[in-house]
C-alpha cells in the first residue's frame, strides 16, 4: 500500500534516486515538495513579469531603430561604434512552415536581411548562419544564392555588394570563382564584400568525430604520431573544414541555447542574447553590435 502510494505520488521529473523509502521520509518529502510547487508558482509570476518587461524592451528597440532598407542609415547607426566584428555568427530558428515568415522561405528571407545589414556596416566580411537542422543544405546552392541576392536587392538596388555563399560540410560554394574555366569578374572572385557560411549541427561535434576518425586512420597507417596532434593542428583543420572563430555570436531565439553550434569555434566569441526575443530584428542586431563594441577582451589576463 505504502509502496504503491509512494510510486504514484513521486514526481516524474525528480531524481528516482531520492525516492523516500519509509513513511516518515515520505511525509517529509511531500511537505517539502508542496513548498517547491508553491515556489514554482511564485517563479511563474516572476517569469511572466520578466517576459512582459523583455517584450516591452524589444518593442522599444524596434521603434527606436529602423533601417528603412537604406544602407546609409545602417552605416550611420554603427558610425559611433569603436569596433565592429569582422566575422559575425548568428543562430536562427526554423519557424513553423505554416505560419507567415516561417519555413525555408522565411529562413532565406532572414538570411538576406542579416546579410544586407552586415554589408551596410561596411566592416563585417564573414557571416556564419547556424540553423540546427540544416534544412537549407538540401537545396541547390544557386537557388539559395539567387533568393538571398533578391532579398538584398531591396536594400541595394543596382549597387549590389558581391556576396558568396558556402556550405562547409558539403564543400559547395557559389559563386565558385572558376565557372567553366572562364575568368570571372575579379570582384566576385577574391574580394567578396560578404561571405555567408551555412552551418548546422553536423558541423559541430560530428565534424570533430570525423576528424578523429581520419587521424586514427593516419595513425594506424603510421603516417602520424598521436603526440603530434596539437591544438594548433586541430585548429588549422577546423578552420579549413568549417569556419574560423567568429568574434560575435547573436542568438536570436527566446532562450540562451547554443543548440549544438560548433564548439571548437566559440572559444573567445562574445555572445549576445536578447531574452524572450523570437524574431530576427534590426534592433537586436544593432544592440549586439553596440555591446560588442563596449566589451574588453583580455585573454588569460
Amino acid at each position, binding site marked *: 500500500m505504502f509502496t504503491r502510494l509512494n510510486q504514484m505520488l513521486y514526481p516524474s521529473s525528480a*531524481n528516482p534516486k531520492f525516492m523516500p523509502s519509509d513513511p516518515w521520509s515520505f511525509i517529509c518529502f511531500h511537505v517539502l515538495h508542496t513548498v517547491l510547487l508553491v515556489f514554482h508558482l511564485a517563479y511563474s509570476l516572476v517569469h511572466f513579469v520578466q517576459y512582459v518587461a523583455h517584450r516591452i524592451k524589444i518593442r522599444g528597440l524596434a521603434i527606436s531603430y529602423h533601417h528603412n532598407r537604406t544602407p546609409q542609415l545602417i552605416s550611420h547607426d554603427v558610425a559611433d561604434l569603436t569596433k565592429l566584428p569582422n566575422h559575425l555568427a548568428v543562430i536562427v530558428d526554423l519557424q513553423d512552415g505554416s505560419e507567415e515568415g516561417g519555413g525555408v522561405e522565411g529562413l532565406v528571407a532572414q538570411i538576406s536581411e542579416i546579410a544586407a545589414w552586415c554589408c551596410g556596416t561596411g566592416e563585417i566580411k564573414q557571416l556564419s548562419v547556424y540553423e540546427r537542422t540544416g534544412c537549407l543544405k538540401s537545396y541547390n546552392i544557386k537557388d539559395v544564392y539567387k533568393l538571398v541576392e533578391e532579398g538584398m536587392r531591396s536594400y541595394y538596388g543596382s549597387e549590389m555588394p558581391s556576396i558568396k555563399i558556402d556550405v562547409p560540410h558539403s564543400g559547395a560554394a557559389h559563386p565558385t570563382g572558376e565557372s567553366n574555366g572562364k575568368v570571372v569578374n575579379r570582384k566576385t572572385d577574391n574580394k567578396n564584400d560578404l561571405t555567408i557560411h551555412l552551418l548546422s549541427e553536423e558541423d559541430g561535434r560530428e565534424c570533430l568525430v570525423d576528424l578523429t576518425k581520419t587521424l586514427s586512420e593516419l595513425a594506424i597507417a603510421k603516417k602520424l604520431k598521436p603526440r603530434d596532434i596539437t591544438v594548433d593542428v586541430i585548429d588549422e583543420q577546423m578552420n579549413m573544414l568549417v569556419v574560423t572563430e567568429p568574434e560575435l555570436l547573436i542568438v536570436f531565439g527566446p532562450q540562451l541555447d*547554443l543548440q549544438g553550434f560548433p564548439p571548437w569555434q566559440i*572559444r573567445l566569441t*562574445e555572445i549576445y542574447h536578447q531574452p524572450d526575443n523570437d524574431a530576427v530584428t534590426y534592433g537586436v542586431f544593432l544592440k549586439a553590435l553596440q555591446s560588442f563594441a563596449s566589451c574588453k577582451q583580455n585573454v588569460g589576463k
Partner: protein
Amino acid sequence: MLSTLPGIQGFLSWGKTCVARILATGPVPRHVAFVMDGNRRYARERQLETREGHSKGFESLAQILELCYDAGVEDVTVFAFSIENFKRTPREVESLMEIAKERLTQICESGELAEQYGIRIRVLGNRSLLRKDVAELFDKAQTMTKGHTRATLNICFPYTSRDDIAHGIRGVVRDAEKGEIEPADITEQTLASHMYTGNSPPLDILIRTSGVCRFSDFMLWESHQGAHIEFVDTLWPDFGVWRMLAILLKWSWRKAYLADQAEQGNY
C-alpha cells in the same frame, strides 16, 4: 543592518539549507560549472590586495558548494586556472599557485567540506604544465578523497577546453593505434569519454559571473548543447547563495514545465 541582529546569521544559514532541501524534491541539475570571474575587480574596487579578492572568492565558493551539494547536485566543476593564465606576471602566477596549494590543503585537512559532504576532489587539466610540488599536492588531495562518493568537485587547473578536446582526440587515436577501437566505430561518446570530464554527468548549468558573455575556452564541448547558460552581472565574491538558489529554482521550473521543449533538445 539586518545582518547585525543577533541570531540572524544562523537563521539565514538555516533558511538556505531548508530551501536547498526543498529544491532537492524536484528536478535537480546533476552537473554545474562555474567561471568565477571578478575577484580582482572586487579587490580593486574596494582597494584591497588582489590576494584578498581571491580569498573572498574562495569563501563565496565554499558556501555555494555547500548549497549545491545540499540541493543534490552530483558534480561541480570550477575553472580555477586557465592555461592562458600563465601569461600573467610571474608574481601573480606564483601567488595563484600558492593560494591553490593553501586552499587545497585547507579543504583536505580541515576536512569540513570533504568529510561532511563526502566530496571527492578531481583535478582536471594538463598536469604536465604544473610545477612538481603543486602537482604532487593535487595527487595527494585526489587520493585522500578517492573513497568519497556522494559528490564530486572538479577543479580545472590548468585547463582550456581546446586543450581538453585535443587531449581527448589524442586518447582516441592512441586507442585506435593499439587496435582497441576501429576508426569507423568512433562516436561522440567515445570522444566525450576520453575528455577530462568523461566521468562526469552531462553539464546542466554553466554560470559565469561579472558580466562577461563568453566562454573563454571553458567547457566548450560540454556547454554548446543542452546546457543552460547563465551570464550574471555580479562579481564572483558578491555572487551569493540566494542568487544561486534563484538560478537553481529557475532551472527546476524550466525542467518541470518546459519538458516538451527539452525533449526536442532545445529548452
